[in-house]
């Protein structure tokens, strides 16, 4: 399922690279922005895909966990003067704990109740989290400003911001880490097995409930990691993470369920598409159409091709 890059994927990578080169010559900024934003989308989508693939839960509260991470980073910064970069470890751990707690309190009890109950419970959770944040911090945005997050360099006459390349770095690191974990560790292999057949997994000696707990905790921790690196670049408000739920869902579907590598590719591809449209004067208003248009196109072509086979 969570397969290594297939032949088709290499073809896609090649196409992406060619497109990237062409765009790079025509509008280098679009390429840069696209890669940066696309990577961010991918980091956030990866854990959603993981939870969807293994637990079968479409987590509607995904973006709210991202928001929680942002506020945690913000609090560390504003109360204790901790630079966001230094918050990486505590916030990631905190979110892991939050994930585990939410799992134990809620998700765990509805795993057998079917995916619709899970959908609803995550919707309820998202409501509770965002309203709770609202009542504590109001809707007024907060921010953590650091100079390094807006530094830029000029290369071959092109000036661009450097910080967001971190997103690419993190995306690759998270992806590689996840793949190594899934392929090379016994727990990772167990994760695959549980995703496909929990009962079969328990029969061969896998502790299924631990795998679920671990996957959920790990995923939310990754969300926390992403949130830390976003904080210096974004406004923090109760709805800050919300739009990423659907974006992540979109990337997961575009990559195809279980295809983690595809998520990074899809993220970057969509990021570049978006950036190109934005670069065209008057284009920005259409960028969502392009984002979702490409998504629909990819899903449809795949469905049609598979239907014929």
């Amino acid at each position, binding site marked *: 399922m969570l397969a290594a890059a297939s032949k088709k994927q290499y073809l896609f990578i090649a196409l992406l690279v060619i497109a990237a080169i062409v765009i790079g010559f025509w509008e280098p*900024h679009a390429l840069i922005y696209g890669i940066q934003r696309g990577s961010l989308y991918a980091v956030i989508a990866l854990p959603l895909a993981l939870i969807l693939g293994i637990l079968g839960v479409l987590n509607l509260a995904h973006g709210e966990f991202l928001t929680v991470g942002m506020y945690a980073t913000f609090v560390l910064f504003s109360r204790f003067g901790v630079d966001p970069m230094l918050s990486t470890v505590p916030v990631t751990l905190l979110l892991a704990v939050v994930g585990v707690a939410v799992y134990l309190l809620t998700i765990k009890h509805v795993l057998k109740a079917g995916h619709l109950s899970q959908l609803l419970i995550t919707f309820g959770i998202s409501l509770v989290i965002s309203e709770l944040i609202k009542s504590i911090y109001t809707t007024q945005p907060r921010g953590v400003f650091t100079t390094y997050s807006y530094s830029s360099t000029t290369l071959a006459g092109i000036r661009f911001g450097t910080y967001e390349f971190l997103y690419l770095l993190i995306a690759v690191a998270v992806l590689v880490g996840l793949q190594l974990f899934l392929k090379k560790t016994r727990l990772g292999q167990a994760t695959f097995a549980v995703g496909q057949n929990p009962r079969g997994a328990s029969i061969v000696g896998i502790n299924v409930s631990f795998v679920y707990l671990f996957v959920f905790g790990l995923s939310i921790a990754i969300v926390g990691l992403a949130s830390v690196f976003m904080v210096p670049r*974004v406004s923090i408000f109760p709805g800050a993470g919300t739009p990423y739920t659907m974006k992540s869902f979109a990337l997961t579907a575009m990559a195809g369920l279980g295809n983690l590598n595809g998520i990074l590719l899809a993220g970057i591809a969509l990021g570049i598409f978006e950036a190109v449209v934005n670069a065209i004067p008057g284009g920005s208003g259409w960028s969502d159409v392009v984002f979702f248009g490409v998504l629909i196109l990819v899903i449809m072509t795949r469905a049609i091709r598979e239907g014929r086979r």
Partner: protein
Amino acid sequence: AEPIKFGAVNPLGDITGFQTTRAMELAVKEINEAGGLLGRPVELIVVDDEMRPEIGAAAIDRLATVDNVDFFVGGMGSGVHLAQVPALKKYEKITVWMGAASHQVEIAMGPDADWYFHLHPWDYQQGASYGQGWTDIANAHPEIGASRIFLAYEEGAFGTDSYLAYLDLYEAAKDGEGPYGQILNDFAGASFTSALLGGGDYRAMLRQAMDFDPDLFIWAGYDADAVPMVAQAMELGFEPPLFVGAPPGWPANFGDNPLSDGVILYGMWAPALKEVSEISNHFWNEYIKMHGHEPATYFAPLGYTNIMFLAEAIKAAGTLEKDAVIEALRTIEYESPIGAVLKIEPSNIISNQGFTSQKILQYIDGEQHVIWPFEYATSEIKYPFGR
């Protein structure tokens, strides 16, 4: 005695609606402590609209029929308010509405609703008032020009309406007419997706602005866009001489951000007004005393104004009789903590419009200062923006 009931519909989950409500509570408290109106206490009944149109409309029905309020006050978003228009028309109670800037509301309300009073400047009025402001500033400071304006606008109703208004103003300015007639030579705009709606990457748009090389760069978005917008401009090296933001509210502690220095903003009010206005000072102190936090947006003093203005009119009318109160609302003048005298005049369609202009403010050394209108100015303009 039987209280006089004011029914308010505000989005309580949002900072604007939340603080508006708090400010209204302050006003009601002050009125009652001063003996109420016509010898009767005032009661404020607030219903949350959850920023959902149908909920906002139902709230009107509830206030009118269950709570039997005498007046309607409050209100923020145009989307919610549009849905309330049919209900308001049904009851034709005196309504003093403080928010909802979209001219669509005015169209929906139509010219005949003499019981409807609208306090916030309409979108087109705001555009016009800025033109006036920049003309004044350019006249006062020969080195400052605003002949090339670039407008960045968020893709929703708020931003788009601003853009359309600017296009009209620009058309007029080409013939030397209108508020921008004397200053504007060239105008361009580009849209962006607000961070509030999942955007937040302005760089493509900012690069278009940079290519245009404006004297005045202005963005119409939301508070969530403020910091990333300035910061991304810095990343790109984009430093227009005038960097203006026009969101309805600003992030908490924006002034503490080093990038804020010199950023110009449009708004109806700034905390610094307490230095020049008695009533502003009063409002500021009392609000903090009562609620323990500072008013963050101009909606707080506007909410206070909303109640006080209506109360003054009732006092002036000396009765709750509808025609008399309408007459009073039309004639009285109210010195508002917003930093302006509130006086009703007709706007394009409706006959009872309150404020018609915004102010030009600027972050200087972490504080919001008024730089125009000059009579309320708390500081000289800092020019040019940037280092």
